[in-house]
């Protein structure tokens, strides 16, 4: 009896220890980087160019924003369309299975493979060269599974009674989707977009091989550009400046934290909009 108690105490201690390791690892990384990064995080660093003695990251911020916008503009409509087809139209069978298999596989492919593909296909064969467009096209395929799956979940949450109500009024299937189903799932679509933004901002390998690493202000989407993550990689890899690297890393972490906050808000809204009717 006593032996069992000791054993249980040890087991419990191990579980607590593991949870502690997880949280401690996070706290260590986040605090260490933010603390070191804040020292260098001033308006001059954020809002100046990266040339002529200045080491600002404004061009990288802009490149990141452009790549994010372009990728979302490409991936969101396609992903939402695909999710609508899968949830509203597709009947169980080979086609559904094929699309499922493709999205699962796309979700599992490492980003460096996306980079390789983007390099050979968009950069070389389609002759988009190293450009924000090549990067965004590559990334939009990469985030497609995220958009599809998240939107699918949101669509499945829309009560059948909404669809019935609309159809019974003589609306067609597509009118029902456009008028009732999709609007009800908007917070879910928003979640999908925010999650994708997080992945795009954090991506390095795929962008590095497709969008290039020029530190100029990008003038058009055919220009090459360097995103923040790539910038951090170059700074650290080439040992250019650890101070700047810290500051860039801090910005990335803060961005991710904000994105997580936004995701939780959007997801919360989705939940609320369907529960409030049961009162």
């Amino acid at each position: 009896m006593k032996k069992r108690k000791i054993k249980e105490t040890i087991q419990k201690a191990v579980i607590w220890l593991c949870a502690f390791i997880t949280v401690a690892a996070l706290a260590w990384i986040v605090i260490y980087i933010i603390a070191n990064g804040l020292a260098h995080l001033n308006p001059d660093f954020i809002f100046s160019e990266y040339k002529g003695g200045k080491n600002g990251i404004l061009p990288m911020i802009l490149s990141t924003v452009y790549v994010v916008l372009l990728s979302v503009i490409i991936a969101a409509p396609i992903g939402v369309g695909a999710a609508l087809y899968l949830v509203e139209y597709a009947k169980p069978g080979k086609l559904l299975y094929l699309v499922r298999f493709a999205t699962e596989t796309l979700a599992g492919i490492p980003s460096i493979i996306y980079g390789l593909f983007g390099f050979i296909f968009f950069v070389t064969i389609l002759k988009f060269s190293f450009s924000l467009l090549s990067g965004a096209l590559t990334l939009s395929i990469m985030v497609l599974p995220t958009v599809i799956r998240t939107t699918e979940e949101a669509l499945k949450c829309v009560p059948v009674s909404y669809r019935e109500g609309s159809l019974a009024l003589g609306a067609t299937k597509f009118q029902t989707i456009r008028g009732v189903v999709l609007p009800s799932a908007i917070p879910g679509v928003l979640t999908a977009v925010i999650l994708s933004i997080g992945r795009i901002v954090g991506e390095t390998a795929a962008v590095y091989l497709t969008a290039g690493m020029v530190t100029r202000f990008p003038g058009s989407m055919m220009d090459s550009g360097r995103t923040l993550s790539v910038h951090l990689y170059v700074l650290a890899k080439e040992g250019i400046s650890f101070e700047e690297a810290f500051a860039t890393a801090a910005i990335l972490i803060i961005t991710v934290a904000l994105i997580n906050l936004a995701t939780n808000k959007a997801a919360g809204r989705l939940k609320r909009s369907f529960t409030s009717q049961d009162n």
Partner: protein
Amino acid sequence: MNNTQIKISTKNLNLYYGDNHAVKNINIRIEEKKVTALIGPSGCGKSTFLKTLNRMNDLIPYVRITGDVYFEDLDVYKDYDIVELRKRIGMVFQKPNPFPMSIYDNVAYGPRTHGIKAKEILDEIVKSSLEKAALWEEVKDRLKQNALGLSGGQQQRLCIARVLAVEPEVILMDEPTSALDPLATLKIEDLVHELRNNYTIIIVTHNMQQAARISDQTAFFLHGEVVEYGPTKKIFRVPEDKRTEDYITGRFG
């Protein structure tokens, strides 16, 4: 003067869910501008039957239907465009299902879907529909508020207004008061009473008193069959079939 016309009729109507024979050989004639109540124990096929009339069963896979349903002498499953059919045969569901949008948009949804865009016309339709559904006075100052904030009874009347806005000829009601409290139920019953002058109403109900109070004709369903169909007064006072009598006097539970 008895010039009643037949609005909807069925001929040897059967419905199967896979192997389950849920609706058996129904032959029924439903009169125009009357309230017809469908009563019977749970699972007797009355709701399923109701949904064959506006083809809502089309949504469910594995459903097979044989026989005919006629709406004004044309076959519902062959001669009608499904959208046109559902426009003319509206439906109110068991659980109020307003869309998660404003009260105004809920009512305007149907007319908008059918191509009406002018603001003045929509305003007019929304107002008159809400008035017909006896909801206008309660909501006229908060048309822009989300419909999900209304009480259950108000939500159901909103759903009725939403149906009225597309100007149907027939309204199917699938246990419209089963999710409501007694007061809200009474309001819906009053409303049905008002609407019978202009619409043909078919209502499925579990509530015997309700059927007796509001309907002109009553059909008693059991195990997917119509056991007895006739004027409500007759069904409730002198039923011909022993099973009808048993059910009405409460021996079926």
